[in-house]
């Protein structure tokens, strides 16, 4: 297969929504859609009815006859999405689609991605808003300075992104640490403070156990780690390993 044929086949199987879609903006939405549909072999009234259907589906029914130059950033992304759906491909690339969107727009793409996932479509979703990625991705590839620094499934991340229980006690000694070892990985910070990493049970059980053995619990703080922390942690690890 020639490179051109491969390229055509790939384009046929992938729908692309860029971060900043750039169109030939002097055209009306429906005209540009029909024009692009022509490249998929869809012409005339078929292309027009498809345009109406998809543009309406993505909330652009009132803008069908408007020039693309009048579209907002969010509308442009919805239009690009409608165009990417012309041949209903099995794969999508959402390239930083959330940038510049209002909360409604962000929610729209989040739900759409989840819907695609349910329908068995693959979505390559690039974003800097990791909190959003956390909610929709099955697998995350971390890129730092143009290099892939990690490739994990969400289960792996959840497992690795451990939480910790910060405790302030009236004393920290070997007996206390022995108690805590039953529930995780304790480490004393000073004579009164200790961190329990990867706690295996709820903090209330651990506090109850400490009180039972006569240890006064002055403060207990549970720390949850986000995808963002995970990412920064990865970066730190890379930088440390690079230093060595």
């Amino acid at each position, binding site marked *: 297969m020639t490179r051109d044929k491969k390229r055509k086949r790939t384009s046929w199987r992938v729908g*692309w929504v*860029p971060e900043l879609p*750039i169109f030939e903006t002097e055209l009306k939405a429906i005209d540009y859609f029909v024009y692009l549909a022509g*490249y998929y072999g869809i012409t005339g009234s078929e292309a027009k009815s498809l345009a109406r259907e998809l543009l309406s589906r993505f909330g652009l029914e009132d803008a069908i006859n408007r020039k693309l130059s009048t579209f907002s950033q969010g509308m442009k992304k919805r239009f690009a999405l409608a165009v990417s759906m012309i041949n209903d491909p099995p794969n999508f690339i959402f390239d930083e689609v959330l940038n510049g969107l209002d909360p409604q727009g962000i929610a729209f793409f989040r739900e759409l991605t989840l819907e695609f996932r349910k329908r068995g479509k693959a979505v390559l979703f690039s974003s800097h808003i990791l909190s959003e990625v956390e909610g929709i991705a099955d697998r995350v590839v971390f890129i730092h300075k143009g290099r892939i620094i990690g490739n994990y499934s969400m289960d792996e991340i959840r497992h690795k992104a451990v939480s910790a229980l910060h405790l302030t006690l009236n004393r920290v000694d070997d007996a206390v640490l022995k108690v805590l070892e039953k529930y995780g990985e304790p480490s004393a910070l000073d004579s009164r403070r200790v961190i329990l990493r990867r706690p295996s049970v709820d903090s209330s059980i651990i506090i109850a156990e400490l009180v039972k053995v006569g240890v006064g619990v002055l403060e207990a703080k549970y720390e949850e780690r986000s995808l963002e922390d995970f990412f920064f942690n990865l970066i730190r690890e890379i930088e440390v390993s690079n230093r060595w």
Partner: protein
Amino acid sequence: MVNPVFYDFKRGLLRPTVLISLAIFALVGVGLAYLILSVIAMNPAVRPEVAYYTVLDNSTGKFKLELHIYNPELNPIDGEVSYKLGCYDGKEVDRLDELYTKGLIGHEEYLKRLAEILELIDEGVYKSSGGKVVVEKKLERLPLQGYTCELYLNISTPLGSMGTIYTPRSGAGYISLVLGNNTMYVLTGVGMPLRPPSKIMRGEVPGNPEEPINISGLAGAMSATIYDFGGRVNRSVLLLTIYSPLVEEFEVYIRSTPPGAQLSLKFVERYFNYTGRARVGVNVIEVNASLLKRETRELPGVRVEVIVPQSLLLLVLARSEDAVYVGLGPVEIRPVQPGISQLLVVQQLTSQIGPGLFTQFFPILVLYLIYVYIAKPRAQGALEFTLARPITRTDLYITRFTAGALVVIASAMLFNTTFLIAVQSITKLNLGLDVVAYALMYGGVIVSLLAFYSLCYLLSTLTSGTKYIVVSVILYILYAFIWGMLPYIVVSLTRGFGLGYMTEVMKLSFIMAYFNPIGLNNFYQLYLLKHVFGEEAIPAFQAEAARGVVEPWFVAIATITWLLVPALLGWLRFKKISLIA
């Protein structure tokens, strides 16, 4: 890929800028058609011909005027005819002439009194249909007994206007025909200025054919002119108008020398050439020979054909049981250059008027089209989104190139067709061009514009956005305006303004035209002129300059090179350039 091509074509052609420009070009085309018309109308070799007869029956008051208008090739053309029928007492005019000659009245007073003498009997303005005007009416006012009547004609046609001043003795004088108690005013005429008609006489039937015809009175009037087409055509046409209330049909004879004896029927048969039959009215009689005498004369360095002045005699003859009707008069032979008006039109078409002008100015729209198709979206980064469709860069390049080329072809065809229709409907001339001529006319324009299009397409892959506009406009100015001046400058500087200056300039112009996409049209126009009218239609210096320089093969190679090479180089470049804004 048909739909994107069609869509790109549609959005290119239906852009307001393109549509408005085409409308302006179409209007300019109509204006140019009028310019061509004025060029033809001002050319002395091209003028309309008229043939008419008119009769006023003084007993019934019935007036009739039938007038035919022709172009120089004697094909009917339409125009507007205005006439005035004026009558006056001839003795009064004689008296005024005498006073004026003796200096008793001044020129102004003379003219004023002349105007007072003339009595307007009737007037009218009519548009011809199929080259013909027929006026039939009953007049309320009639000339007084013993009055002289004249017809004053003004004819306006696309090929020019002509007319007579409304003053005694400047119009065409009617012949008074007295038939019993009835007086009829009869007048015939062919051509302008108006000339008095020849009289048709009534004679007694001679006892034998050799007996001279005894004339007994007036029977009608006739006028004629022979149009000699000469040259390759070798034919003459006799335009003859006859009016007689007594006879319907006449035999027509022509003779080249005056009769040496009294006119008899035998003499007519023996010495006159029978030419055909003519009926009362306007007759067009074909004579299958050139009647104009031509002689070839040797002048220093050249042989020229000259027309020898001569006069012919026209004789019309009709016989009845009790009378013979005969009209005899000199007839003018007028040489006609066949296709002169067509030649003038085509010469104009192949000059900087019309398609030439379109080729000169339409490229500005061509470069704008490419800006819309490639240069602008490329600068914006919009092509990247289009390329996310299942197409390759080659597909996109070809699609847009084809669409733009189709817009150029459609625009050129639209302009040329509008222009030709305007020329034909305004000049009322059938240009008589064949398929090859039309192909050369349309092809020249299309090839030139496409060559420039191809060049700008290449440019759009080398630059983009505003840079493209600047460079392409500079290129346009260079090719459309500066290129044509260079031969004059170069020849002036290298050779000076000596003999053969124009030939040298023309020769260099032809050579340089090969290197100018817009200049390709010049070759096609030259071949068009050659094809339609032959080598002789091309001015001598131009023919001399073209010799050895303008060859069909060179033109074909230049055409193909200009069309393909820039487009191919552009394609090679387009495959590699960054399309990100």
